[in-house]
């Protein structure tokens, strides 16, 4: 996946996890928690969805890398470069 595709994939996951939120104004450099109502269970949902959809295993010590869209894409880029985006 390209960084753009990874970003879109994360947006798809966020749409499921935070269905009441407007994601169209999401700022990539600003932490998710400052823009969306996400708690620790929601972040675990992001981790679980990446595991279920792409078999990406994110160790607990790396959870901090998922703070914002930009940091998430940066973190996932080398790990998802060989993953094909579905559909």
């Amino acid at each position, binding site marked *: 996946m390209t960084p753009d595709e990874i970003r879109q994939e994360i947006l798809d996951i966020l749409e*499921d*996890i*935070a*269905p*009441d939120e407007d994601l169209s104004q999401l700022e990539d450099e600003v932490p998710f928690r400052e823009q969306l*109502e996400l708690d620790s*269970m929601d972040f*675990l*949902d992001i981790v*679980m969805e990446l*595991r*279920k959809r792409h078999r990406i*295993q994110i160790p607990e010590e790396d959870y901090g890398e998922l703070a914002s869209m930009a940091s998430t894409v940066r973190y996932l880029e080398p790990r998802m470069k060989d993953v094909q985006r579905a559909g």
Partner: protein
Amino acid sequence: MNAIREQLPDDQRIVLTGIGLTAPNANSLAEFREALLEGRSGVTDYEIRYVGKTLAGICDFDERKYQSRKDRRRGTRAGSVGIYCANEAIRDAGLDWESIDKSTVGIYLGITEHGNVETENEVYELKGYDYDTSFWSHHHNPRTVANNPAGEVALNLGVIGPHYTIGAACAAGNAGLIQGSQMLRLGECDLALAGGVSEAIHTFGIFASFKSQGALATHEDPTKASRPFDVDRNGIVVAEGGCVYVMERLSDARRRGAKIYGELVGYAMNTDATDFVLPNPERQAECMEQALARAGLAAEEIDIVSTHATGTTSGDIQECAAVRRVFGDSKKTWINNTKSYIGHAMGAAGALELAGNLPAFQDGICHPTINLDRLDPECQLRGLVANEPREIGPVRYILNNSFGMLGINSAVIIGAL
């Protein structure tokens, strides 16, 4: 006899001041009453994993009316049912919710079971991952803890008083009401949200288990499948649903000029201790008698008995034997059954069936048990109201039966005010 309630101070008398419900044929008390008087069933065709085509009582209340999509996603169907019913009950009670001290509110919801739905779903999902438990959801525990439905209501309403569920098989709806009244009398809360909820139709296990037991109803016309007391009955129709009451001390209700549906004037719970599944009519009769004694009422003072009967061959006969023992000589007591319309709403059954009868205090009508084409001679009951509503005149007392597996029995008596 002198009703005990006349000797109690108003702060020891417990009244029902709000009702919120969802049933397979209604999403409010007014709709429910109308369906019961018109003989409208809520049972439809249904299909569930592994079991395949069957029948069920399915609710169609608007989950989004009081709950965000995110909370619905994180929670359970039982939680959602509870949230809808509790909010509707508060609205119906005319409470100014914002001004209420939420530490004085208690939530007591009866459940038949909880957690089966989520566990079945997770195991099913896990199969797709070759049973690798790293794919098991972190939501499993908060969804399956036994207090979940009551806890979700507390989260939704910001209630910080006590909340818990009462696990009481199919006697749970009554048990919720009984718990609510006890806590109000003890001063543990000033307002109780009490009743019962069920998400049972979303677990294949309940259907499969009744089927294996030979107790799952079948009929080519779903609306005719739930037929207590009929000689052609062949089992239970599983239903979901919920009914939550706002309960208050009479003194508080009068102070705020609340509308009062009725007063909980007596109750009893006891145990068969004889079988896992088969009911014991002797204990059931003793339960009703104890409720009458505690209310200070004679059997003939009860105007309506709302039976628990589920449409199983032996269960219906046993309850009829118990009702005959207590009410056999009572010429002015009428008897009905509400599962004939909606199926068996499990943890919600007792609370829902009582609610369906409460408007009789105003309209003097006893709704019938429907689908009674040929009465089983062993279910012969004096005063059984069948197929057509009956005008019975002024109604002062209603006794509501609710029984469950492991021999748990309950009877609640509500009086008009």
